[in-house]
């Protein structure tokens, strides 16, 4: 017994040493390793792109070492550690890259290229129970009495802000005034049964049957179906374009720039497409079957009305109007407060 314990102790010490050895190797400025810090959703796609990248001349011998988590957390972590051992970031919201620009870690012109800093995109969709028993058609159904909505909480998950903007622009697309749009948002918020801490947790709660409608992203719904989950999703006539930024840090190894170029190339984007993301830029995706999409051969139907963040004046303007920082309560915060107060 004692010998066994000893063996176990030695094994765990060796294991810890091995692990710490690995991590220091990853951060030793090895110029063939791309250290990525990103939000959780595109992990599988990034890994697939890395495999393809390693086959190119520029990426010969390259290795991707990824750290994934909630977008805001990840961004704050990079800023707090001054970008140590980070080459490339892939976040859910522009503001998470802007934080690094403000910290002097990412060049000011990171979003001046043809893709405007965006590396992956998707749209907001409504996920429903298999077979859509409630007959949900679009965003207007979310105010119905029999609907129990699950969404990630914009207060705890920056990515959920896309959901709020989808609802808001839907109301506006119906010709509603600002006050009527607020009333609509409040009604939907009142129907929310679970404000999940992150998009993943929202999906998790939905899978357990907690609510019957989930506001989510198309790629998240497709991924869930690829994984065999019992759900359907609806692409409403109106939706909002979700654009996830990516950027190379100033002090990154040169291979990181080649990596970003490859991510934006047709070949890179096709890997995103296979995981359910919409391609950024003009990419011919005919011939790619996207498993899990409603129609794998034509996976990305274009909603008749699709708003973008640019239509609303860009993220800085939207953040200043909607989402309070430093404890200030802005438009979203007030609606959220009013809708949940009893």
């Amino acid at each position, binding site marked *: 017994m004692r010998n066994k314990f000893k063996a176990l102790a030695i094994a765990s010490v060796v294991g810890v040493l091995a692990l710490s050895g690995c991590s220091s190797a990853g951060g030793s400025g090895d110029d063939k390793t791309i250290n990525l810090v990103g939000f959780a959703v595109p992990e599988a796609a990034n890994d697939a792109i890395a495999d393809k990248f390693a086959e190119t001349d520029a990426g010969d011998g390259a290795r991707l070492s990824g750290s994934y988590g909630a977008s805001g957390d990840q961004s704050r972590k990079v800023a707090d550690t001054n970008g140590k051992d980070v080459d490339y970031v892939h976040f859910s919201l522009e503001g998470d890259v802007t934080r690094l620009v403000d910290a002097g870690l990412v060049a000011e012109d990171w979003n001046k290229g043809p893709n405007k800093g965006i590396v992956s995109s998707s749209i907001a969709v409504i996920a429903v129970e298999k077979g859509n028993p409630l007959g949900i058609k679009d965003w207007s159904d979310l105010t119905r009495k029999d609907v129990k909505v699950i969404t990630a909480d914009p207060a*705890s*998950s*920056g990515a959920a802000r896309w959901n709020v903007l989808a609802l808001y622009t839907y109301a506006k697309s119906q010709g509603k005034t600002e006050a009527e749009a607020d009333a609509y948002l409040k009604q939907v918020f009142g129907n929310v049964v679970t404000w999940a801490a992150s998009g993943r947790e929202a999906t998790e709660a939905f899978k*357990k049957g*907690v609510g019957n409608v989930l506001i989510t992203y198309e790629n998240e719904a497709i991924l869930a179906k690829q994984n065999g989950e019992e759900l359907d999703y609806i692409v409403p006539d109106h939706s909002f374009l979700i654009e996830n930024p990516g950027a190379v840090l100033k002090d990154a190894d040169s291979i990181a720039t080649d990596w970003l170029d490859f991510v934006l190339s047709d070949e890179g984007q096709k890997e995103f497409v296979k995981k359910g993301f919409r391609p950024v830029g003009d990419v011919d995706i005919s011939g790619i079957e996207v498993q899990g999409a409603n129609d794998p051969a034509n996976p990305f139907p274009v909603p008749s009305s699709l708003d973008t963040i640019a239509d609303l004046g860009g993220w800085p303007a939207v953040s200043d109007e909607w*989402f309070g*920082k430093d*404890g200030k309560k802005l438009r979203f915060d007030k609606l959220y*407060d009013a809708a949940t*107060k009893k």
Partner: protein
Amino acid sequence: MTNVIAPPAGPARTRRPSGGLFRLSTASGIGLGIGLVWFSVLVLLPLSAVVGAAAAGGWSAFAGTLTDPQTFAALRLTVVEAVLVTVVNAVIGTIVAWVLVRDDFVGKRLLDVVIDIPFALPTIVAGLVLLSLYGPDSPVGFNIVNTRTGIFLALLFVTLPFVVRTVQPVLLEIEVEAEEAAASLGASRFTTFRRVILPSLVPAITAGSSLGFARAISEFGSLVLISGNTPYQTEVASLKILKFLEGDNQAGAAAVAVLLLLVAVVVIVALDILSRRVARRA
């Protein structure tokens, strides 16, 4: 914290020869040094950082955060639930420990192991388990998701082992002779329990309760899936902290953290005083 858990019913501490700090032997000097450095680095530094972050926003920001109705509702819910859970645990945990020590039954060893599972499970897994058990697909037809009852059950689940595991060893040490003596002097079983057994158990019960309370006010993982996180209704303080951080409001997050810290300290001290009183009276 350590002085709370130290086996209180043990023999009186052997007194060190007087002489104070400067007469320590080399070994105990090194021990004391390591202990202090360890404690400072692991506990005092982070704590002062939190307090510093809360103070950085100034008093008005601190007060403003805590008096915001949404934040206040979250804090009240958290503290009230934690107190209720602690009271239930103190009673039920003692009973469970009693059963495990004094009674013999089939499956006792198994139960003894199973008690620790809430400890061993990563809390997010605990949340998933509870969601499956008490969610809409519940096999027992019991749906408490997104309710305060759900939060209560989840907290009971994750804090159950604390009182059991602190009371159990003390109960094992208690000599049956004292009970027999009490019985032979004509004390009823209830009186024996109240006057002989309970006083020696109280320090252990309060120690376990303090740990459980501290865990309950800070619990996050198991609640995040089951509570629904709706402000004013089922939002707990730990989630409020997460939301503040996401909104780049570090001072707000630190303010809530400092308040939770103060509440924890007050409760732990109160329980410690209670346990000393009872021990003295016994």
